[in-house]
């Protein structure tokens, strides 16, 4: 199973590095006024990386080979779930590195350092998105899964705009979305556990679907 | 050991192999105890099915020409010498019959034929 994760990394190595860098920089420079950059990056980067990985698999039709190898469907599915969280980790590391460098050179653009609460939020965010998307992908394949992708992308564009509008109309809300106020330690742990539960359910569903898939 | 098979002849390939190996044994080119190629090796070299070579070897074994030794391979069986000689004689007889027929066609007399035989016997 480790091989499958490595395989994903290997296939996307360039894209992974460049896109993560690009998006984190973009988030820091442009989005900083509205959202914590690492929050947005933490959701967008893993999700986009997942989509590109699946797109490539689809184009190559390599699922035929993977499913001809002596490997359990459970492992194939698990690898997909885990890879996303690895992308998440990479994004956070990238952000931290950038922030560190910026502070080192005293650039005024430096964003806030990553906080534990923030990580929880991203984990929950990506966890939920993936829990919904992956079973759809494993059941219907990549192309039909694009429907979800479209819906999600549209939502991802609309929601921030709406959020900006709300903040604009309610100036008493802080200019930036401050996470620490909202997420206490207890709430954080509950959210984490809930997300893990949802992920587990999603995982089992995905495995069930994938076992029935035909290639 | 040469075995030449033809696809365009009517005769089934396994029969061609049987015949040729029999002849090699009768002619003495293959002697008692000589090793034969494995059925798979033969099949690969001749580019035919291993089922064909298997069949050929089975028939040769049935007729007592070859022996399969478990774990070692296939070998030319000890031939009944009298039988072998008889078979070899038969080959000579057949060839002489051919010569006689050929001679008759051009009206060669028996005496002339015998002369030819004498000369050839000494030359060859």
């Amino acid at each position, binding site marked *: 199973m480790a091989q499958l994760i490595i395989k994903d990394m290997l296939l996307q190595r360039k894209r992974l590095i460049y896109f993560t860098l690009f998006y984190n920089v973009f988030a820091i420079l442009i989005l900083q006024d509205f959202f914590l950059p690492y929050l947005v990056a933490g959701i967008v980067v893993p999700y986009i990386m997942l989509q590109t990985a699946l797109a490539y698999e689809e184009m190559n*039709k390599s699922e035929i080979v993977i499913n*001809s190898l*002596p490997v359990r469907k459970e492992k194939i599915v698990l690898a997909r779930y885990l890879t996303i969280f690895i992308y998440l980790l990479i994004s956070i590391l990238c952000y931290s590195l950038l922030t560190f460098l910026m502070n080192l050179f005293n650039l005024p653009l430096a964003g806030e350092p990553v906080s534990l609460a923030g990580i929880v939020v991203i984990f929950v965010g990506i966890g939920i998105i993936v829990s919904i998307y992956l079973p759809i992908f494993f059941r219907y394949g990549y192309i039909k899964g694009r429907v979800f992708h479209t819906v999600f992308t549209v939502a991802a564009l609309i929601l921030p705009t709406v959020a900006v509008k709300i903040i604009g109309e309610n100036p008493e809300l802080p200019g930036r979305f401050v996470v620490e106020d909202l997420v206490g330690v207890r709430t954080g742990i509950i959210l984490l556990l809930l997300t893990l539960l949802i992920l587990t359910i999603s995982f089992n569903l995905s495995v069930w679907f994938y076992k029935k898939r035909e290639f | 050991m040469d075995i030449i098979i033809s696809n365009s002849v009517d005769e089934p390939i396994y029969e061609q192999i049987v015949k040729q190996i029999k002849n090699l044994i009768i002619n003495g080119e293959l002697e008692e105890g000589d090793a034969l190629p494995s059925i798979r090796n033969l099949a*690969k070299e001749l580019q035919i*099915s291993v089922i064909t070579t298997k069949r050929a070897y089975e028939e040769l074994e049935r007729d007592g020409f070859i022996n399969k030794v478990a774990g070692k391979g296939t070998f030319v069986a000890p031939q009944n010498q009298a039988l072998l000689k008889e078979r070899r004689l038969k080959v000579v007889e057949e060839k002489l019959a051919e010569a006689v027929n050929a001679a008759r066609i051009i009206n060669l007399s028996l005496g002339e034929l015998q002369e030819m035989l004498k000369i050839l016997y000494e030359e060859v």
Partner: protein
Amino acid sequence: MSAILEVDNLRKEYRDFNLNVSFSLERGYLMGFIGPNGAGKSTTIKLIMNLLKKDSGTIKVFGLDNVKNEIEIKQRIGFVYDQNYYYDELTVEEMKGIISRFYADWDDELYRSYLKIFDLDPRKKIKELSKGMQMKFSLIMALSHHAELIIMDEPTSGLDPIVRRELLQILSEILQDENKGILLSTHITSDLDKIADYITFINQGRIVESTTRDFLLENYGVVRGKKELLRQTDKGLLIGVKENEFGFEALVKDKARAREIFGDKIIIDKPTLEDIMYYQIDGKVV
């Protein structure tokens, strides 16, 4: 129990296509799986590999159920498909790195020896390889883990005749090991003329014939004669009758019988596998 593959009453139903097949292959032989496009060859192979789900029937590989013991079986199967489905962005070496780790019996030395035999540069990206080399790569992957059963689905389509012959040579070598078996599906029957031990002929989802190639070549024949002879024939003797201006031609399954009936009035030729396939697809039996 030497059957390396046993397919029994395997059924799969689609809207406009119905598969129902039974056949088996013993160790030490190569079975050519022939039939026209769309006959069900790929479907059958995918069912064996559990890439498609069967509706009913059993598939046993190495005596084990192909679904219950799927992983164990796949450890011992080498597969070669009709196209390259490996990741074309990766190099040969990288791809091998991924694949090899799934197989318990992966033999790296064997892999390297095959690279040499095929003259394949492991540093090349898969997309940089020609179609023939890509197929050879697939074959190397299939052979480097001491697979007992090699399943090939139209491996030679799109390859030039020279590469095809090379492949057949290699398959010949593999069969020197009488414990291995090869199932090769193809619609290019000439590939099998030199190498197949058994032939299973499938058409429209059904097995038409499953026997030794020798049997087919010794009993089938292509018959040619005057059209008036069509009247005096035995029922069911002439298959796939084709009439032209000057006479008729047809396939017979029993050429001895045909000779009996028509005597000298017909010409009987040795059939190629393609003939055997071709005349039976049309189905006109007289």
